[in-house]
């Protein structure tokens, strides 16, 4: 493609969503990736589109809008990625006061959060262990197959006049007078005045090549996949510890149960979180812990076999908020990264924020809390 208006680095869901949103706004967009579509964190998650695990604040506002944008994106490009408004159920054993407090708080901020007790919980999840006596049902929680989504969104971008180049690893970011000019890659040089850094866990490297800085680090997470089963799990079901772990900054291993069925019949079991750099070693102890937590939630899973386990690296910033906006040093360099374990859910909302900012038009929320400039002060 000669003379794109914008280059998006990263063909994961965050980059794909940005490319689509910019294309729909009338820009000619080139997407490049050092590998193939969805070869990073997008292929290592569960496809979560959640509002239930967010405390009221800017991330929840982004999540709520982003969740609706997922369904708009489906209308726009087609039903090709198993998008399903399956709903989430957060369950508690014993003391549920924290859970109820959060639900009430969320309700005041536009989240549909319904307290369910005993029989209602049984109706939602008949195979749940009876020791769970209460929970909160979040009908807005949704799920998709993120690899299919990224692939189909990029296909749509190309069909609408954009382009995609795979195996194009960025070797140099071209900056002149603190303005973006383009990139040099292993597939040649590409020039554009707008560069979107959607490289997730690796976003810091691109920022550095441009002469800036971005404090994004990896958090490792494991997920188990069972054999296809009869329908035992009807929603996304997780224990109330999960919410606490998502917000935690602790470096040590944390596991909290998240169990959900997929359209193809397999059940996904997550999620562990630990900070071990880019260490991709398989760890049987973590798998054991996840499996035993899942069976304590759903005893019926004891007789279900595991097919495989996978792991990936969730990109996070020190304050656990995504980084979405223009770089504070280099004009024309836009970041959309650091979404941690919520990148699938937050992708279209982040794309809308970026596109609106690039076009200088008003957006659905004030993006200041996500601005990369918040780290500039710390770094200076």
């Amino acid at each position, binding site marked *: 493609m000669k003379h794109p208006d914008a280059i998006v680095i990263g063909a994961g869901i965050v980059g794909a969503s940005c490319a689509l949103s910019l294309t729909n706004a009338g820009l000619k967009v080139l997407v490049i990736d050092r590998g193939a579509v969805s070869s990073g964190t997008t292929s290592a998650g569960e496809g979560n589109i959640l509002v239930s695990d967010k405390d009221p604040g800017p991330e929840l506002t982004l999540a709520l809008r982003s969740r609706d944008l997922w369904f708009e994106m489906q209308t726009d490009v087609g039903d090709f990625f198993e998008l399903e408004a399956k709903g989430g159920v957060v369950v508690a054993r014993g003391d549920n006061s924290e859970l109820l407090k959060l639900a009430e708080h969320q309700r005041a901020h536009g989240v549909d959060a319904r307290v369910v007790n005993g029989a209602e919980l049984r109706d939602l999840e008949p195979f749940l262990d009876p020791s769970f006596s209460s929970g909160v049902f979040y009908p807005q929680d949704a799920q998709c197959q993120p690899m299919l989504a990224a692939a189909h969104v990029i296909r749509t971008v190309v069909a609408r006049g954009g382009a995609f180049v795979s195996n194009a690893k960025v070797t140099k970011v071209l900056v002149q007078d603190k303005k973006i000019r383009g990139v040099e890659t292993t597939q040649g040089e590409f020039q554009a005045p707008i560069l979107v850094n959607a490289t997730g866990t690796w976003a810091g490297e691109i920022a550095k090549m441009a002469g800036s800085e971005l404090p994004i680090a990896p958090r490792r997470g494991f997920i188990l996949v069972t*054999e*296809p089963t009869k329908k035992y799990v009807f929603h996304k079901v997780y224990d109330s510890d999960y919410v606490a772990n998502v917000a935690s900054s602790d470096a040590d291993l944390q596991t909290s149960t998240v169990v959900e069925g997929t359209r193809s*019949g397999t059940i996904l079991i997550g999620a562990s979180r630990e900070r071990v750099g880019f260490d991709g070693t398989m760890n049987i102890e973590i798998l054991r812990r996840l499996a035993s937590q899942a069976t304590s939630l759903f005893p019926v899973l004891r007789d279900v*076999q595991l*097919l495989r386990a996978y792991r990936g690296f969730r990109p996070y910033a020190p304050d656990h908020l995504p980084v979405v906006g223009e770089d504070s040093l280099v004009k024309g360099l836009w970041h959309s990264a650091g979404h941690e374990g919520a990148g699938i859910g937050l992708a279209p909302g982040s794309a809308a924020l970026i596109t609106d900012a690039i076009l200088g038009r008003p957006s659905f929320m004030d993006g200041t809390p996500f601005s990369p400039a918040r780290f500039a002060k710390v770094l200076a």
Partner: protein
Amino acid sequence: MSEVISFTFNGETFDGEPGQTVAAVLIKNGNRVLRSTRFGGEERSIFCGIGICFDCVVTINGISNQRSCLVEISQGMKVESNP
């Protein structure tokens, strides 16, 4: 003359030798189709033959999703295409 091991596949009796896998005996006897897919009803056989692809899964003695390319036959084993 080695021992003959008999097992059933979807009710039909097959004979094999010790050490042979379920898939090996079935293929040798002309049974290429081991199961059909859950949604499309398409026929499936062994694909990789070394336990990686999970295409050849069958139900063995009531336990579903066993890889027929890995499980060795045993006397009186009951093998079924689908759970």
